[in-house]
């Protein structure tokens, strides 16, 4: 049990860093909603674009998959966290828009249409 606690604290710190970018970590984080519905609407191809483009352009970023974000009407959905910024969720991200997101938001800090504001309460804020 004590081990679990320790493990949790350790990992928690690590993930916290990932979520909040308060560790001076300068890496960009891209999370892609990949439940069945996301994948069916092309999330896998979108993920590949992000990975390929990041490698090609030598951008230091982490791309991970996650579960359903709940925005079925706007799949595929992608959450991008830039160091020092709040995470932003973009909807309707097809392959073309994925490159646009890299060009505009990631490299130039310019937002792109299709932003979905977080409109629910997380329980850890309570």
């Amino acid at each position: 049990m004590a081990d679990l606690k320790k493990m949790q604290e350790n990992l928690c710190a690590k993930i916290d860093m990932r979520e909040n970018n308060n560790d001076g970590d300068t890496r960009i984080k891209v999370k892609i909603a990949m439940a069945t519905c996301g994948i069916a609407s092309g999330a896998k191809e979108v993920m590949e674009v992000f990975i390929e483009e990041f490698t090609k352009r030598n951008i230091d970023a982490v791309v991970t998959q996650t579960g359903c974000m709940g925005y079925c009407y706007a799949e595929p959905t992608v959450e991008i966290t830039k160091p020092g910024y709040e995470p932003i969720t973009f909807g309707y991200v097809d392959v073309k828009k994925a490159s646009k997101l890299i060009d505009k938001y990631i490299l130039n800090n310019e937002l792109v249409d299709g932003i979905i504001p977080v409109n629910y309460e997380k329980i850890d804020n309570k």
Partner: protein
Amino acid sequence: MAKIKYHILVCGGISCHASKSEDILKNFQDLIKMKGLENEVQVIRTGCFGFCEKGPIVKMMPDNTFYFQVKPEDCAEILEEHIIKGKRVNHLLYRDPVTQEYKSDSQPIGFYKKQIRIALRNCGFINPENIDEYIARDGYQALGKVLTELTPEATIEILKKSGLRGRGGGGFPTGIKWEITRAVKADQKYVVCNADEGDPGAFMDRSVLEGDPHSVLEAMAINGYCTGADKGVIYIRAEYPLAVERLKIAMKQAREYGLLGKDILGTGFNFDIEIRYGAGAFVCGEETALIHSMEGLRGEPTVKPPFPSESGFLGKPTNVNNVETYANIPAIFLKGAEWYASIGTAKSKGTKVFALAGKINNVGLIEVPMGITLREIIFEIGGGIKNDRKFKAVQTGGPSGGMLTEKDLDTPIDYDNLIAAGSMMGSGGMIVMDEDDCMVAMAKFYLEFTVEESCGKCSPCRIGNKRLFEMLEKVTQGHAVMEDLDKLRNLSFVIKDTSLCGLGQTSPNPVLSSLDNFYHEYLEHVGDKKCRSGSCKSLMQYIINAENCIGCTLCARNCPVDAIAGERKQAHLIDQEKCIKCGACMEKCKFNAIFIK
């Protein structure tokens, strides 16, 4: 290249749009251009922020200030004060209704949100294939706490106090279910996770399993500890391959970490889980049918009692809970029964996940506190009805539930209120219908589903539902007489009263509730041979307006069944006997001479 420093996010939701968010957007754009700030400030339209009664909403980034009820003429002030001078525009901030204080919320704001994510707390946040991410978000802490600090009795007590009720639809108090199973003495007990999600249009459980499989595993282990079972079985339909895959990965990782298997966390508690596949039969969501299917028998229900808690899987005491019920449990032990019970209504605690589908703008998966109204769900979270059509009804509870209408829009949603309104909570499918949907046809759709899915064991369900379906078909085809409507109602009651399991006992609900709420539509179908929504094809007629028809013959040439006759340059006529109502003629006509009656 100069980088953008400030972002102004303008809500583009339906109701903000109605209150001039487009003008706000345009004003900002013009002002930015005028001041030559294009390279530093960007304005963009976003999705709905979900606080429509205070709209239009404008969010400033990077400092995350929200401005409410912004008017187009406020744009200059916001730009001047906020961006250029770096000062907040106080009178546009959120004003706390109690303290009257202006809140400047650079912190994540939690005060206006309609949704609370408990069961979905990790969905869309963690990588479901990585146990470390689950653990980092307090995963398996609840199991650890229960195993090391609490007795099974105390654990069940907490669950009872939380008020959690079964999320599969029945709403049986989960703590009491566990207590009953615990009280039965046996050499072997089982806990089962019912992941046989079968309602048309429902995908709550799949999303939980695909997004946060560990939360279900953890809760099953807690269940095992409380009820005295060391084996868990997940019954999942084989149509959910990704959910199965992620569950398998999760189980493997949990075993490697010693969180499943022998001597969990060094406490001497053993618990392991296996997966059984269902072939996707709706009736297997019923717990006795589910258990028979797991045993390799036909998925048919049996009479209760004996309840599964006395004699279930392989004749042993078995505790069956639904996926979403499980997903709530770890959060209850982490944050306490009081916290959980503080959310919701008097008799229905916590939240409910709904799969919002149908004629609604924001189709999606939502989790809302019990007690929220349908109006809030449909018009705020759901963004209203598609294409500005008029709301007609919403079906909750899938084929077992009923239709809720305009008059129910402001009823707080919980188990008991929905039953009082003639529907039920169900597992969480919510299908929204607009004025273009025919309620008789909807009832027929659900009956068609039940007829398909009836296991055939008992005759009321096997034969009765088939007869109901045939009668509905008669109504939609215009062949029914008034007596048929009485027969529909009577037969519905007979099926409800005499069927063996929940499937048959609830299958006439869509018929009854549509008869109750939309009797006039039935009357129109029977008496006037008319379908007001135009969706019952047998009742509509394509007619050629002789005044507009110039006799070009285009329609006649395109009719697949040669139902249109007429000389060149003379008005044509459609033979209603031959017409199959495909609409090809109307599509081709260039003179708007064909209309539907």
